[in-house]
């Protein structure tokens, strides 16, 4: 989301500081001048209005006893009643717990893996080797979760390739893809397989923007490989690391739906229930009703919003840029 900030630079020469000083033109004049731009923006705004802001407004039913069978305004407001029900639901807190667990595991184990991969790749000298390897590792990022889970089941499932080898060697089937105790490891492997390559590409881009003269100077000064890594490389990619961390924190309750839904039956709902699957199974195809599901979703949305703001604030205090700017 650093992109948010790149909106200005090229234009800055033209308009720096002038934005607040409106040209002395009337709205009508500006409309005459700018209507083509507005017209071009209109379809996108309409899409946002209908599929982002309208649903956002529907969140109000989290505070109502909403029943689809009666007219909207006849649904009484019930305050935070649904949130109380949410927290007294015996399966909400476990779902929240699972969500946080998966989110932190992603932060702690997948994120560093991307950095390590990028550093290793960066140190590969041969361009050809590097680009080949890059292409291979990055490819699964474009696969759907259905495909990723399929590949894992076919390879590591109880009837998969590895199981059949083991059976052939006189061993037992590998119940890895349906074992709730090891699901965390499985999920980690899936994240790594699918997403580590993507993280790697981003960090590689960041690494390539570090001035090589810095390394040369350090090397001439006698800094070892590790010292250079610590004092030049990591600080060089720190803004990107912080940025990605903040974004991950904001989406911390959005650990994804498909991966868990797809493996729910195989591993059991207790292990795989996250907030999104909770909303889906309890309210959309369950019997808890619209207001309940909306309340659970709103809880998630608000926590995400607060986390981004807080994380960004912390980043500012640490002297980082974060995703938006201090004024």
């Amino acid at each position, binding site marked *: 989301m650093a992109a948010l900030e790149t909106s200005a630079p090229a234009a800055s020469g033209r308009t720096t500081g002038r934005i607040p000083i409106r040209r002395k033109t009337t709205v009508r004049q500006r409309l005459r001048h700018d209507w083509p731009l507005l017209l071009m923006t209109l379809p996108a705004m309409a899409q946002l209005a209908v599929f982002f802001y309208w649903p956002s407004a529907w969140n109000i039913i989290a505070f109502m006893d909403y029943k689809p069978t009666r007219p909207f305004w006849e649904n009484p*407001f019930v305050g*935070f009643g649904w949130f109380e029900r949410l927290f007294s639901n015996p399966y909400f807190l476990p779902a929240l717990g699972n969500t946080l667990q998966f989110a932190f595991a992603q932060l702690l184990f997948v994120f560093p893996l991307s950095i390590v991969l990028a550093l290793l790749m960066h140190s590969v000298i041969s361009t050809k080797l590097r680009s080949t390897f890059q292409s291979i590792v990055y490819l699964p990022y474009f696969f759907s979760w259905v495909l990723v889970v399929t590949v894992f089941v076919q390879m590591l499932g109880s*009837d998969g390739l590895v199981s059949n080898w083991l059976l052939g060697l006189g061993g037992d089937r590998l119940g890895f893809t349906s074992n709730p105790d090891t699901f965390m490891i499985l999920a980690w492997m899936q994240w790594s397989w699918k997403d580590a390559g993507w993280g790697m590409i981003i960090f590689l881009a960041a690494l390539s923007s570090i001035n090589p003269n810095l390394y040369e100077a350090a090397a001439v000064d006698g800094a070892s490989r590790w010292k250079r890594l610590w004092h030049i490389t990591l600080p060089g990619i720190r803004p990107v690391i912080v940025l990605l961390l903040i974004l991950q924190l904001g989406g911390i309750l959005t650990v994804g739906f498909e991966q868990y839904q797809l493996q729910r*039956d195989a591993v059991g709902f*207790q292990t795989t229930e996250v907030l999104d699957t909770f909303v889906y199974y309890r309210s959309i195809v*369950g*019997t808890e009703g619209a207001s309940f599901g909306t309340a659970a979703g709103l809880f998630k949305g608000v926590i995400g919003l607060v986390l981004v703001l807080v994380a960004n604030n912390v980043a500012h205090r640490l002297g980082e840029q974060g995703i938006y700017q201090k004024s």
Partner: protein
Amino acid sequence: MATPSSRSPFRRRSLFKAAGLGAAGAAGLPVISACGDIETSGGSSQATEGLDFLPEYKEWPLPFEPDLVGEPPNHPSAFTSYPEPVPAITDVPSGSGTYEITVPMWGEPPSSDDPYYQALFEAWGGTQLNIRHADGNDFAETSVQWIQANEFGDAIHMFAWMLLSHTDFQATVTDKFYDLTDIVSGDISDRWPLLAGLPSSSWGRSVWSTDPDDPETGRIFGIPGPAAGGPGNGFFVRTDLLEADGLEMPTTVDEVLDVARAWTDDAAGRWALCGLDYYTPQWFGLPSGDNWWYDEETDTIKHRTEHPGYAEWLEFRRTAWDEGLVHPDAPTGTLDTQALHQAGTILFQQDGISWWQTYIDRVNNGEAEGDIQPLGAIATNGRDPLVHVVHGIDGWTFLRKDLEPEQVEEILDVVNFCAAPYGTTEYELLNYGVEGEHFDYGDDGTPVFTETGTSIVQAPVNYKTLARVANFLQGDPEYVQRRFDYNASVLEYAEVDIFEGMRVEGPADFKAARATLEDQENDVAYGRAELSSIPDMVETFLGSGGEAAREHYTAAYKAARGE
């Protein structure tokens, strides 16, 4: 960052302004009206007898008497011969409308472009009622959304057990479906003689009250589906595979396990058992339906979780799983178990009773081999066996609320046709299709399906299951005899409906708690939770809806007994 900070569109001030607005808005709401409480549906119970607005019952004289006379409803009579069919409807009304009905489909949906449909449309006098087959495995859940969005076409066929997935079906019914009362009330034998011949009790079961608190506001919202009678499900075994391994038909639960142990060969990819969730509870004396039973000792209504057999049942399932007797992919719940049973990958299959006939049909036209037979009534720990049977009717057909009365009447014309009983030409067309295309007469005059017939006409739910004026066992004579004998053999163990004369819908909280309980039962059964967690699980269930529902069901029980 080279960007002058004041230029960034996302300055902190403006962001907080935007965020603050939302927070204030949200915080303001409870102040506006901190009153009011959430009303979840408390469930409903509807008397299905003694209603005066039902269609007047006019007996529809059957053209033929059954060959085998049973003891309906739990032991239906049967036909082992195929009489020369006679027409049931003499003057076919003409129709011109095109309608669509959504029905559940288990397995491969048949092609919708087939002479079967054209022949029926023609027989109906031009009315086109197209079938939309939707996946039966999640029909109950997705029907909630279809109905909410009015996306079920003009009609939807629902089985009684599917209602459990609806938060408040009583409100849904009255809000979304056509109120048929004015059309079908009184004497309808002129236009719909077959529908007038449906038992009053089945029309009574199609009544919902528009005001949940006032049973006097009852109206007819559904067209009652047929009542099959007898056990609706079976635990089928491949008898040919049993014999091949020199094994005996099990007669106790322990023997089921012994046979399973002897037959299962993991390395060869064969497992004796697969689904054990909805059929096996009866082996342990657990009740069917909404899972309530009457405990004579304490004179109270209890849930199956409070039955001594409950823990034994889960222990049985767990034992089977731990010993590797269950198909390892069974927990996914998405196996095509019929195909596995047919392929001999699994020995036992829990299924609807119709699997029996389907299997025999497939054997007859060479698709499948061997034979299947349901296990008889078995029990554990010296209990008397219990056999779940279909109480009342299977389900209903509901019509879209905004149809015109003339359109409803046209659809009722079709349903009237579909209610024709065994031995009529209508029945033959519905159940066997077109001669030469879907079936041929066998040597004894009994229709035998062709391959096309098996795939098109034999769909578990289609026009032939919309309504039926009288139900008999029918089909392959040998099969009919076997099923008749089977029904007779389990008749004495048939479960008694403790809510006879009432249709009870559980409170929303109960339904939600029950759904979760089932998830947890599977966790225990598939080794994802320990057996020792059962008491906690039961306690959570009772605390989060079970206990409250007990009052509701107790009241319904008393009302049903006239107390």
